[in-house]
């Protein structure tokens, strides 16, 4: 120390000193743009590097031995930093590079980036080292704010522990008082008390200082309230209050040092904008004629949240120097500091990355949570003990418990009493890492109603893969089951044969009724033995195919009648219908055994046959005796009697016709009516029939128009029968008219015959139905017309069997025209 405090002449001694100290050796190998200065505790320059010659224009002798004050611009100079008698170990105050203007030989100022390191305590150095680097052009265009601030200093310290703040503060104030600066402390009572304790401990006479206005202490909170208006500092009041204090302190042109933590108070009150505003006001105060150094402080925890990042940066900007929290200050040298900064940079980066990743994960989680919440299926999670840990909205609806009620309860509250072991069974699987899929079971709601559900339970693993619980998704299938049960009931009731058939013709499923109907066993069914095509007699194959076609087109077929072959070989008449099962190649159908009905039909038809036969016998007698009578009376010449007999004969003929029609009907129905196939001349037939019918009527004239000149292949008698039927109807239903017109024509490959009457006509709604068996138009008018209602049906059938068409044109009140068309045979077939 003593070496350093002497004035040193020449440059050899300091060099020797430096050689010993590796830390500073690089300063020696200073490039031409760097000036290194050594200053003793009093501030006297003990050494300067030769680069000063070129940079500032001095000789070494001119600088060494002078006070450093001479070299540095007064606005950039802080006596406390450059030694002033008292050399405190102010290791907490490190100066990073800041702007220094140095005086050149010619009196001008040159800007440098300088740093000052206090190595007074360091053995072998014992000096304050100043390093000044030439500033690049950029530096000269520093934000105005900063250069303005350099007129006086304004620095901020962020501290983690109060102790560290107090260390800096006591150094700041202590050094100031020792140097003869005035000190203003606007702090909390606690901080003030502790500061004053420390200062007194160093032997400082605070009371005297206070009496001289060299030490002014104020309460931060009180002072703040003096100029705060509506939550923001009012500039005029601030200037008045603080300016006033500074006035007092700055008497005798003393340098003023101020410590203020009002900004910290504002920040801690969550009034961040006011804090920043206050910082700005402090800076504005630098326009005040009195220069002062301002030391602000903030506890680090104020900025714990990421949201304060911007404001933190702003605060830093407001200050000319920033002192990071003590963990940084503990670092000793530039290398360590650089290392620390790099580490911090890396840490900051990795933290940012981690936060970003977490944010993403959080978003994903939120998304998942939203999905769970909005799902229609009940989703719940439970821990390994079965305690419910989460419960979504659908679960609330399905089970009736709110999330609040049920989270924390064991999941077994949902189970039926007799099914409690299900829990253990499921958890065993879960613990093995397995899922339980589509498991159908019953659960009970809060209100006691039992549900049928389908659940899927999966293990929940933490991020190391350990199973920590299970998730369950449940779907209410009660309704579905109910419908299935209803179907099943019908199926199993065996009231009717029900089957499932695929389009290829295999019976996939059938109830017992169907199996009994066809004489097969369930085993045979399951073996696929039952095939539609083998079960259907050949003559119904076409019908079957048509039905399947209709099914695929329209979705259903039937009901229609066909026969199945019983396993024993006998035929079973059935009524069949089926409907397609959606989105499959299968259909669901029923088969009703109509054997009995068919039997009945058969008996009915047999009865009709027999009845007709029975009826004809007495009719034959009637005719016979009538004839004899006619013969006898002809001989006698009894005209009147003969006339009556003729009338009787007509009626008997009519009776015969009716009976024949009835007979035809029954035969037609059983498919036993045979039609002959012969070629005959249409025109001749028409004429013959018309002659015959004309003989039976005196009221109507039958007129024939046209010719066909065609030959028709078919049953001549039957075709004739149709014409007779039409003519008789025409006469019957036009009592007021006197003609019936018959037209024949040949068209392309058809023969057309039409019979027109001018009678009562047929209403639109009946026109299709009159060709049906037993159909009779039931208007009050028509009811007076006799008939069995089968004539048209028979005619329709006859023509249809010949491959022709029958239709009617009619207008009620105007008359009807009945048409039939028969196909003509091609030349080759003749």
């Amino acid at each position, binding site marked *: 120390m003593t070496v350093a405090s002497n004035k040193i002449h020449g440059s050899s001694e300091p060099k020797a000193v430096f050689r010993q100290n590796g830390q500073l050796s690089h300063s020696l190998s200073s490039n031409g743009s760097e000036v290194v200065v050594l200053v003793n505790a009093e501030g006297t320059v003990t050494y300067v590097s030769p680069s000063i010659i070129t940079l500032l224009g001095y000789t070494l002798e001119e600088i060494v031995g002078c006070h450093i004050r001479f070299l540095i611009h007064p606005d950039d100079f802080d006596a406390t930093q450059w030694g002033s008698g008292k050399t405190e170990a102010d290791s907490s105050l490190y100066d990073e590079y800041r702007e220094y203007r140095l005086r050149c030989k010619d009196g001008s100022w040159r800007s440098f980036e300088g740093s000052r390191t206090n190595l007074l305590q360091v053995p072998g150095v014992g000096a304050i080292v100043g390093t000044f680097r030439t500033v690049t052009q950029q530096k000269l265009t520093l934000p105005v704010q900063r250069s303005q601030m350099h007129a006086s200093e304004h620095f901020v310290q962020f501290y983690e522990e109060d102790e560290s703040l107090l260390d800096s503060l006591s150094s700041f104030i202590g050094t100031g008082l020792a140097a003869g600066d005035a000190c203003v402390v606007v702090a909390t009572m606690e901080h003030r008390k502790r500061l004053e304790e420390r200062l007194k401990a160093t032997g400082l006479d605070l009371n005297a200082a206070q009496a001289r206005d060299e030490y002014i202490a104020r309460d931060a909170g009180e002072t703040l309230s003096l100029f705060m208006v509506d939550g923001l500092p009012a500039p005029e009041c601030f200037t008045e209050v603080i300016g006033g204090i500074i006035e007092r302190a700055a008497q005798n042109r003393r340098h003023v040092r101020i410590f203020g933590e009002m900004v910290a108070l504002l920040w801690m009150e969550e009034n961040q904008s006011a804090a920043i505003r206050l910082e700005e006001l402090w800076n504005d105060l630098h326009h005040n004629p009195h220069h002062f150094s301002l030391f602000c402080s903030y506890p680090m925890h104020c900025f714990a949240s990421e949201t304060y990042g911007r404001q933190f940066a702003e605060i830093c900007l407001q200050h000319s120097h920033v002192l990071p929290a003590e963990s940084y200050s503990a670092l000793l040298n530039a290398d360590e500091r650089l290392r620390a900064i790099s580490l911090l940079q890396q840490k900051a980066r990795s933290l940012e990355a981690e936060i970003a990743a977490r944010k993403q994960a959080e978003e994903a989680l939120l998304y998942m949570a939203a999905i769970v919440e909005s799902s229609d299926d009940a989703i719940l999670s439970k821990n390994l003990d079965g305690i419910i840990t989460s419960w979504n909205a659908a679960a609330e609806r399905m089970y009736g418990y709110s999330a609040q009620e049920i989270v924390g309860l064991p999941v077994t509250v949902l189970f039926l009493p007799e099914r409690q072991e299900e829990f253990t069974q499921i958890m065993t699987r879960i613990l093995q890492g397995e899922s339980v899929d589509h498991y159908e079971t019953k659960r009970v709601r809060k209100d006691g109603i039992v549900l049928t559900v389908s659940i899927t339970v999966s293990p929940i693993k933490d991020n190391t893969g350990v199973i920590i619980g299970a998730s369950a998704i449940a779907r209410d299938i009660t309704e579905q089951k109910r419908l299935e049960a209803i179907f099943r009931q019908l199926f199993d009731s065996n009231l009717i044969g029900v089957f499932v058939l695929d389009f290829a013709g295999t019976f996939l499923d059938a109830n017992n009724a169907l199996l009994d109907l066809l004489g097969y066993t369930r085993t045979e069914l399951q073996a696929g033995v039952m095939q539609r095509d083998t079960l259907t007699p050949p003559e119904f194959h076409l019908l079957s195919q048509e039905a399947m076609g209709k099914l695929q087109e329209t979705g259903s077929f039937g009901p229609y009648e066909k026969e199945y072959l019983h396993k024993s070989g006998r035929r079973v008449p059935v009524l069949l219908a089926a409907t397609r099962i959606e989105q499959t190649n299968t259909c669901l159908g029923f088969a009703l055994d109509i054997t009995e009905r068919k039997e009945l039909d058969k008996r009915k038809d047999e009865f009709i*046959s027999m009845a*007709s*036969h029975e009826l*004809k*016998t*007495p*009719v*034959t*007698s*009637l*005719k*016979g*005796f009538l*004839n*004899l009578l006619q*013969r006898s009376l002809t001989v006698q010449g009894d005209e009147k009697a003969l006339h009556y007999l003729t009338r009787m004969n007509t009626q*008997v003929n009519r009776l*015969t016709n009716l009976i*024949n029609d009835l*007979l035809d009907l029954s*035969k037609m129905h059983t498919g*036993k*009516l*045979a039609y002959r196939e012969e070629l005959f001349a249409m025109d001749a037939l028409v004429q013959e029939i018309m002659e015959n019918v004309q003989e039976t009527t005196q009221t109507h004239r039958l007129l024939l128009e046209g010719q066909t000149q065609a030959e028709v292949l078919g049953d001549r008698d039957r075709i004739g029968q149709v014409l007779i039927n039409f003519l008789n109807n025409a006469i019957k239903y036009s009592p007021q008219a006197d003609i019936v017109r018959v037209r024949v024509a040949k068209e392309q490959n058809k023969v057309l015959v039409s019979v027109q009457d001018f009678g009562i006509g047929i209403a639109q709604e009946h026109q299709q139905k009159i060709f049906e068996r037993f159909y009779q138009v039931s208007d009050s008018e028509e009811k007076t017309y006799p008939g069995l209602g089968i004539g048209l049906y028979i005619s329709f059938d006859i023509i249809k069997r010949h491959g022709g068409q029958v239709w009617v044109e009619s207008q009620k009140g105007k008359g009807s025209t009945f048409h039939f068309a028969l196909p003509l045979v091609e030349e080759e077939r003749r």
Partner: protein
Amino acid sequence: MQVKQKKILVVEDDPDILEFLQVLFAQEGYIVATTDKAEYIENLQESCLPDLILIDVSLSGKDGRDIVKYLKSQEETRFMPVIMFSAHLGAEETARAAGTDDFVAKPFEMDELLEKIAKHF
């Protein structure tokens, strides 16, 4: 010279029909024999063969067609004309298949019946 009268045998089980047929045929100058029993046919003596048999398809107890088949199979009666009649129209085919020479539907049109008889003599 008296033309030998033709003899018609009518096989029918309804008495009313038999009655008027008898009268009718008699008026026409035929000799009529009637029976309602099928066995009668089988016991026909050669000496008393009719000139024509009129037989119903449906006889009580026996099928007229079988009788016709029998008649047509026997040497003695093979050439004897047979006319069958029936209330069933459809019976015509089977009757002709059995060998009948003609067929008439019941109820008869007298003219038609007499015509057919005259034709087959």
